[in-house]
């Protein structure tokens, strides 16, 4: 039921746009670039960095963040606004199970949408290089990069999703707390590394397969001052999400239906 609502709802069209907007731009770039290409290898190197930039700055810090905000806050808050949440609470299912079921539904939706978006961007970016592009993807580092991007997408959806789900249980209008979370995610690099571990992007930017050479203030978004191991970087968002979901389960048990207040 939830998957159908998440995927085929008119109010979710903007999430599709977020997921596939870079695909449209990269397609245009590929069409234009194909006619002007002189040195494929140097162009592929540039495009690899461009793709890395699109992923780290657009997908990770903007599209997935706001897409998960839209998907996960609507899981409960949307049911309250549509006055249909009581049907779920009147089912012989523990509320914690209900919450986890909705969370899984949200993760499947967000990972599918943004995963497909990343896959589409990746495919178009290298497809116009012809055999050189195929070699890079299937025999070179390309496939590893793609799998890394997809894995980071999944971890981002899990991390952000759990936070937004809990915020929607606590606060009637989660937009302001979401703005606070966005600020936290953006500026946490200037904080001590122990505090940074409570940020989703702290772990995820370490997993990005292609580093982007940036100087000055922009380096805050890509450089990690005290990196952790790859295993810890993968486990970090999962542990963070688990802790948040445990808290969310406690809150959902005490959640009261009060549509009039909405």
């Amino acid at each position: 039921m939830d998957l159908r609502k998440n995927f085929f709802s008119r109010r979710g069209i903007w999430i599709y746009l977020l997921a596939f907007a870079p695909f449209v731009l990269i397609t245009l770039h590929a069409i234009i670039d194909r006619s002007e290409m002189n040195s494929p290898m140097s162009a592929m190197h540039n495009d690899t960095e461009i793709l890395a930039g699109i992923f780290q700055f657009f997908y990770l810090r903007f599209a997935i963040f706001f897409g998960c905000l839209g998907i996960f806050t609507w899981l409960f808050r949307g049911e309250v606004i549509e006055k249909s949440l009581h049907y779920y609470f009147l089912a012989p299912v523990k509320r914690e199970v209900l919450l986890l079921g909705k969370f899984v539904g949200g993760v499947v939706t967000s990972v599918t949408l943004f995963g497909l978006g990343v896959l589409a961007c990746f495919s178009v970016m290298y497809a116009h290089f012809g055999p050189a592009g195929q070699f890079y993807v299937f025999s070179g580092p390309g496939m590893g990069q793609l799998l890394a991007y997809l894995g980071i997408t999944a971890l981002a959806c899990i991390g952000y999703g759990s936070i937004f789900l809990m915020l929607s249980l606590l606060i009637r209008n989660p937009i302001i707390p979401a703005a606070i979370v966005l600020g936290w995610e953006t500026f946490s690099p200037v904080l001590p590394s122990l505090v940074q571990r409570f940020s989703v992007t702290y772990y995820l930017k370490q997993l990005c397969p292609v580093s982007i050479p940036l100087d000055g203030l922009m380096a805050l978004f890509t450089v990690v001052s005290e990196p952790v191991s790859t295993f810890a970087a993968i486990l970090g968002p999962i542990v963070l999400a688990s802790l948040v979901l445990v808290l969310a389960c406690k809150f959902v048990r005490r959640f009261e239906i009060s549509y009039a207040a909405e």
Partner: protein
Amino acid sequence: MSTVLGDREQVTGKREQPESIVSTASISSTQAAPLDNRIVLQNVSKFYGEVLGVNRVNLSIPPGVTGLVGPNGSGKTTLMNLMTGLIRPTQGCVSVLGIPPDRPEELFRKVGYCAQFDSFPKGVTGFSFVYNTLRLHELDDHESVRLTLEALGRVSMTEAANRKVAGYSKGMRQRIRLAQAIAHHPTVLILDEPLNGLDPMARAESLELFQALGKEGLHVIISSHILHEVDKMSDQVILMSSGYVVAEGQIHAVRTEVKEHPMQILVRCSDPNLLASRVFAQDHVVEAKLVDDRKGVLVRTRDADAFYLLLNQLVVKDNISLETVAPADDDVNSVYQYLIGSENKTI
């Protein structure tokens, strides 16, 4: 019997199985509903911030049809939401058949709730609305389909089942919500104004359904503003006003306890003038009025039993032929007016 709650007096009429008998060893268990076959609210209060929802409610509701009556804002919906765990009490505790509402995995196998909210998940048809609910009860596809069709049939919604709920009339939406509440054959059925929006035929069918369910031993709790319908279908009533339970029990027993208002008894007989003059001589008779067609007397008495005894004597002594003898205010409407009507002019 009456108890004082703050500055409100709660009238408790005698029930068919008074709680004082429950503990008597000689009474078989079938004669008195044990506590795990009751809906119990113990000293329950609910405040929405500073606004009172319900205050110090003590109820023990046995099986049968219980009518929940009161004006808007009296706390009926709050009470129902407390029973189903949709809201939590500020103090006190609730248990439904011995199960607290914070165990939904047990509770909602036995409870069906048709809430007052006229809203549905987006895009559902009538069939899928009921079917999806049954799937949440861990029923397989075949059983869910069977029960869905059965529930739709009981509320006469089979033909419209495959249309989107968004295109239903108000009455159809009400019936589909009722189907969803009864589909899993609950032991307790809680219905918040289930007759709203129904045409007279549908109302009559629904009333029959509720009475049949009550006779099967289910707990059926119905809130309604239509007092004569509550009278017709209820075994016992709970009257609420401003968050307090004002009276509860069988309506006749509740009426007997309302001593500030003398009982009204209509006697149609062959010589109403003679009867009126005889009865008015009694101390317990407050008023004896001839009815408009002059074929009967409306008597107001503080002691109905004494009046009936007197009537027997007069009939024999004065050779009066009786046509009918019936209480004129032994119904929900009258009790409502006596206990609540003076505070709230309209429901």
